[in-house]
């Protein structure tokens, strides 16, 4: 059974529940001269009506949720199909790589450096207490490379890139630019969505590696605030603790972070409503949903890594 069939059947079943509930409501609300109104029956009738109304409300909510889920699945399916199209929009793809990659460098530079510094300053006292301050560089490096660097960078990118995509595509939807693209025989999914999703998928891992490097640099700076450790010593201690199986799973999951941010940002923008308010809603919901999904993907990645 395909995913589409499951959600369609679930919708049909819920629609049947809604129909039955409406029937109960109509029967209950119709006054019949044959049925004598007894106080207990009247109370039961009210309770059933209330219950039916709540059930209808819930089924409509679930119906909408399942419809949304189907739309997301179809959107992802369409995007993946267009990714392997012969007429790939290479020029737009490189422009998006520049927008997503190069233009995010300043904020990632600041975030990465501060992340390393803060982590070092916070961790140092505990390690000094245990007389294990020599383990500080290694601990920071492993923390940044395995978890802090990828997740914090992805969350920053979800805010900057995800909201940017949601707002840009949302405003294009509102001002009929996407329709204009469609009527000029350009596939808007191929031009707008595929290029952005691919660019995000490829650029975010590079941004994460950049953030990791700056994080370790910031950690060295942080270590020198209260201590005194040379650059060479710090880095040799840091990388002596880092292994290939710290780096590889972290890099792999950043590709998924990038894909999630790209898909969510594009989906929210592409399916924005027709009013200007919907542009703000698209941008906001793109950030919220992509941030949440980054955390969930991280959890799944950690569980999978743990198996090995």
């Amino acid at each position: 059974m395909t995913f589409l069939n499951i959600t369609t059947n679930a919708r049909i079943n819920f629609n049947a529940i809604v129909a039955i509930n409406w029937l109960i409501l109509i029967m209950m609300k119709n006054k019949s001269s044959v049925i004598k109104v007894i106080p207990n029956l009247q109370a039961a009738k009210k309770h059933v009506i209330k219950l039916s109304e709540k059930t209808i409300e819930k089924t409509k909510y679930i119906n909408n949720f399942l419809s949304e889920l189907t739309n997301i699945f179809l959107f992802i399916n369409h995007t993946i199909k267009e990714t392997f199209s012969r007429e790939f929009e290479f020029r737009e793809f490189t422009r998006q790589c520049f927008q997503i990659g190069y233009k995010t460098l300043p904020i990632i530079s600041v975030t990465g450096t501060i992340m390393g510094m803060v982590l070092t300053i916070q961790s140092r006292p505990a390690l000094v207490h245990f007389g294990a301050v020599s383990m500080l560089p290694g601990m920071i490096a492993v923390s940044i490379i395995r978890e802090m660097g990828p997740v914090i960078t992805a969350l920053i990118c979800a805010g900057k890139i995800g909201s940017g995509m949601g707002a840009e595509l949302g405003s294009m939807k509102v001002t009929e630019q996407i329709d204009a693209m469609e009527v000029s025989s350009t596939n808007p999914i191929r031009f707008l969505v595929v290029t952005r999703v691919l660019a995000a998928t490829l650029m975010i891992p590079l941004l994460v590696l950049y953030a990791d490097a700056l994080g370790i640099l910031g950690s060295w700076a942080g270590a020198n605030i209260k201590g005194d450790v040379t650059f060479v010593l710090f880095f040799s201690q840091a990388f002596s603790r880092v292994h290939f199986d710290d780096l590889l799973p972290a890099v792999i999951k950043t590709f998924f972070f990038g894909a999630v941010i790209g898909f969510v940002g594009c989906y929210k923008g592409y399916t924005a409503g027709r009013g200007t308010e919907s542009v703000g809603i698209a941008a906001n919901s793109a950030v919220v949903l992509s941030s949440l999904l980054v955390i969930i993907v991280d959890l799944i990645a950690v569980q999978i890594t743990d198996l090995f």
Partner: protein
Amino acid sequence: MNATQTVTTSSAKTNSDNLVIEIHNLRKEFGEQEVLKNVSLQLKDGENLVVLGKSGSGKSVLIQCIIRLIDPDEGTISVLGKNVSALNSTDLGELRKKIGFLFQSGALYDSMSVKQNLEFPLQRIKKHLNQKEIDEKVNEVLENVGLSHALHKFPSQLSGGMRKRISLARTIIVDPMIMLYDEPTTGLDPVTSDGISSLINDVQKKYKTSSIIITHDIECARATANRVIMINDGEVYLEGNLEEFEKSTDTLIKSFFK
């Protein structure tokens, strides 16, 4: 006059009586609201057909159905002999290359300059052109709309009238056979509106296009129409030439042509 009436058309300046668009019994609803109930119309080769109607009467939905931005619920639309609803995405793409659509808001791409906006459809539809030919074509259409100086500007730097003219330039640059205008003069001052109406006539003469012009601007209708259809409440209310509309004693039509 409440029933749909077809008045004899005057001598429209058409090249032939070949039909480029035929619509039969078109119906479209959004939820419980029936926007188009039973619309049938024809567009002849070389003519400007003006579709008048109040706001919300379904005019924009009509032309969006023609180019299949919206799928109708019932009815058939035939464009250049092809049933639009039955086309697959490749054939629909090929058909759309022959149709120009001028959006109400202009729909210029904000992230691209005027030059890039004009090159965009040309590079995709006329792939055989080299860059020199593309540049010549861009300069030619900009000259036609009187905006040669706006080549390197961005849409945010243009006035409403300039944006509409650049949008028109972007539409005609691919030499379409059919033009669909969605409220071309909305939001523009009378002088600029006259300019747009003149451009519509110039496009008809120079590019030999057949056009459907959706508008509630009577001056634009007067300037451009070979034939007029009025849509009211999702149905064709009256069809004829401009003179018959102007002389009509029907209350609704008189309210338009005050």
